[in-house]
């Protein structure tokens, strides 16, 4: 029997408030509580609450034959506790069914894997503790890195931390003629298995579902079934990876996305030889076919499926390098307030807002950005970072005074 693996990314960043030059050295609170709370409440109403209710209904109806997987960023979980305890409770209920897997990731939804092994490990560990605390001791076994960023080296680090699998993009330039519908292995540490996103079928749901200029619009369950049936029987797994906000937020409820998801499991189970599994189950049941070589990092973002959404232009590189200059000293100071801001400042979204790829994927970038331009994003971020540096220096001085 073949299987479909649904994984949903659940993330919200801590957005910065407008932070002026005059605030540097004076105001040490950086976060736009009002905006962050508003976004969280809006998306809770449109997506998290109704979709969680739907998933619970489906899991109960199919008595374990339907399963899903989540990955929660630490910044998301912190905001849930602060702004949406009702949503947190509904996620806890889902996880408690035993048919929902939770993945491991970095606490701050950061790009640390590209910069520092120590910082990456610290953040993964902090995230694990948070999941254990919120989900009744649950310990994630499979890893997903921020924005599915993956390379051979990142895989090696993840394997060293004891994970048995990792999720990433089935990027065309990496796969070539190969199919994403198999289990692969890390090319340095073969014990780490790699699951690749089937980006055609995933993006049909996540991006094209309501696109009226798409030739296959509208996407119906029947159509979807007719696409997955002819896939060669030898291909054991179909990885459908997407943002959880797809349901109700990116695709509004008026598009019929909830009805689509409500009808899909039953149609799959009754009309095809596919079942549903979580990543851990897939890794246990399916033998890997071969190692996969990924010398340069890939991601699931933009047309290029590389890092250029977050890094590469001068604004992004300057901000990124200035941030990670502080890495060692922040860890050494180990001050809870500093660590908290340090985590939130590392969130990849801040660098995403500074992206200047206006032509290819600029629309998507501006859809997600609270700033008018990448330049505004840069100025604001650097002002905050300047204050953060001053606080670090203050803290250092304090410590030196203690005999």
């Amino acid at each position: 029997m073949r299987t479909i693996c649904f994984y949903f990314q659940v993330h919200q960043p801590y957005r910065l408030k407008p932070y002026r030059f005059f605030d540097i050295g004076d105001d040490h609170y950086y976060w736009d509580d009002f905006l962050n709370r508003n976004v969280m409440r809006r998306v809770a109403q449109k997506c998290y609450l109704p979709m969680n209710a739907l998933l619970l209904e489906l899991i109960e109806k199919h008595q374990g034959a339907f399963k899903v997987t989540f990955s929660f960023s630490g910044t998301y979980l912190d905001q849930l506790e602060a702004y949406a305890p009702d949503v947190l409770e509904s996620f806890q209920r889902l996880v408690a069914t035993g048919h929902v897997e939770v993945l491991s990731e970095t606490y701050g939804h950061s790009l640390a894997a590209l910069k520092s092994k120590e910082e990456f490990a610290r953040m993964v560990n902090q995230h694990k503790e948070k999941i254990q605390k919120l989900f009744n001791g649950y310990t994630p076994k499979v890893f997903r890195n921020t924005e599915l960023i993956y390379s051979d080296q990142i895989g090696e680090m993840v394997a060293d931390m004891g994970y048995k699998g990792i999720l990433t993009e089935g990027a065309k330039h990496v796969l070539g003629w190969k199919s994403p519908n198999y289990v692969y292995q890390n090319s340095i540490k073969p014990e780490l298995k790699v699951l690749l996103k089937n980006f055609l079928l995933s993006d049909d749901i996540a991006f094209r579902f309501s696109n009226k200029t798409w030739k296959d619009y509208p996407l119906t369950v029947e159509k979807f079934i007719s696409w997955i049936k002819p896939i060669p029987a030898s291909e054991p797994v179909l990885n459908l990876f997407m943002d959880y906000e797809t349901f109700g937020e990116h695709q509004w409820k008026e598009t019929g996305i909830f009805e689509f998801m409500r009808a899909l499991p039953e149609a799959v189970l009754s009309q095809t030889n596919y079942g549903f599994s979580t990543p851990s189950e897939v890794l246990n049941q399916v033998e890997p076919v071969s190692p996969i070589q990924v010398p340069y990092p890939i991601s699931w973002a933009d047309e290029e499926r590389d890092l250029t959404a977050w890094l590469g232009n001068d604004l992004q590189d300057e901000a990124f390098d200035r941030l990670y200059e502080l890495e060692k000293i922040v860890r050494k100071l180990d001050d809870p307030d500093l660590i908290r801001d340090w985590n939130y400042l590392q969130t990849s979204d801040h660098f995403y807002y500074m992206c200047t790829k206006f032509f290819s994927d600029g629309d998507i970038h501006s859809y997600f950005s609270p700033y008018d331009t990448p330049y505004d994003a840069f100025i604001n971020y650097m002002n905050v970072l300047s204050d953060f540096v001053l606080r670090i220096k203050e803290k250092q001085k304090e410590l030196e005074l203690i005999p």
Partner: protein
Amino acid sequence: MFGWEFPPHISGGLGTACYGLVKGMVHHNQEVIFVVPKLWGDEEELADFVNASDITIDYREKKFKSIWKNLTYLEVSSFLVPYLGPEEYQKFTDYAIHDRTDVDESIFTTKYEFSGKYGKNLMEEVSRYALTAAQIARDRDDYEIIHAHDWLSFPAGIAAKEISGKPLVAHVHATEYDRSGESVNKPVFDIEKAGMEAADHVVAVSQLTKNTIIRRYGIPAEKVSVLHNAVLDASIIKSKYEKKVPEKIVTFLGRITFQKGPEYFVEAAKKVLDRDENVRFVMAGSGDLLNRMIDRVAELRMGHKFHFTGFLKGDDVDHMYAISDVYIMPSVSEPFGIAPLEAVRHNTPTVISKQSGVAEVLQNAIKIDYWDVDAMADATFALLHYQGISKMFKELGSEELKNLKWEHVAARLVKIYEKTLAQ
């Protein structure tokens, strides 16, 4: 006097200069009728203010039609609006080409509500303002001389002179060459030239501007007098606002445009930061070069020590001067430039470009060529580190300000009036 704006509703230095000048004239018991396109009602009652928006034009007056004909060089299809996107530009040009007749008609309605801004209908407003001026000149006779500030009110000055036969003084605060470098806007240039030629005397805010007027506009030197600007208040400001960062602060405050030379400030900042990490550079203001400056700062990897504040207003401007250790004005071309004097009032040592009018009056400042970023970096470094020189500037600066009062400027203007009337 015909102006375009008057405090508190101003968007540039022109309004401030007019205010200072009127205040100085009042000090010498001169009565001023001050006409602006739009009065807001909260102006200080220094002069006999006339709101051009209230003036009803008697369009049966034949002379007005001939004035309108003479104004045809005021092409409505000239594009003065600085930040038009392509779509807006298209709309604007369509409007200008197709609706020319409508424009004529609206200009000849009896009343006209001026915006008094620098927007899309600027040329239309300038033409209409001239007609209003003609009406005022016909209706009143309680004045001896006409004074027009900058090209926006030159057509008004010319029209008023034609109707009344009284002498005209054209006051040049900035020329098109200062604003746009070599890529001058022809219609604006034409108005400036016509204004200066029609005038009985021309007043320039600096020797630098006088040279431009002679060289670029072909006005004979003896017809041009230099009348430097001054400061409204020469007292030293003791701000209670305190700096919140430990580093020293070096500031650029102005529009981020070609004329102000922001790129030289950025390059000099890099040179200083390479030698001294303990400084923060601040670029306060907004303009079409802002994004390019941000890009360059990031490229030079000094985003952690170089900050952008956006456009500052009100108290924030004072705060910025107050916390600055050095103020730099690297203008490529600055007819006068009052900002460094504000810096001096805040006891902030200044570095100014030789290509600015204010360099002619301010002695206690370091003067450099705007393009010489090495000299700019040296000067900045010196002012930050060598107490002797910055202390001297602080002490002498306040003395210097006392000589830069609008009363003195007004007194000289009265002499110019007398000379012009005697001709």
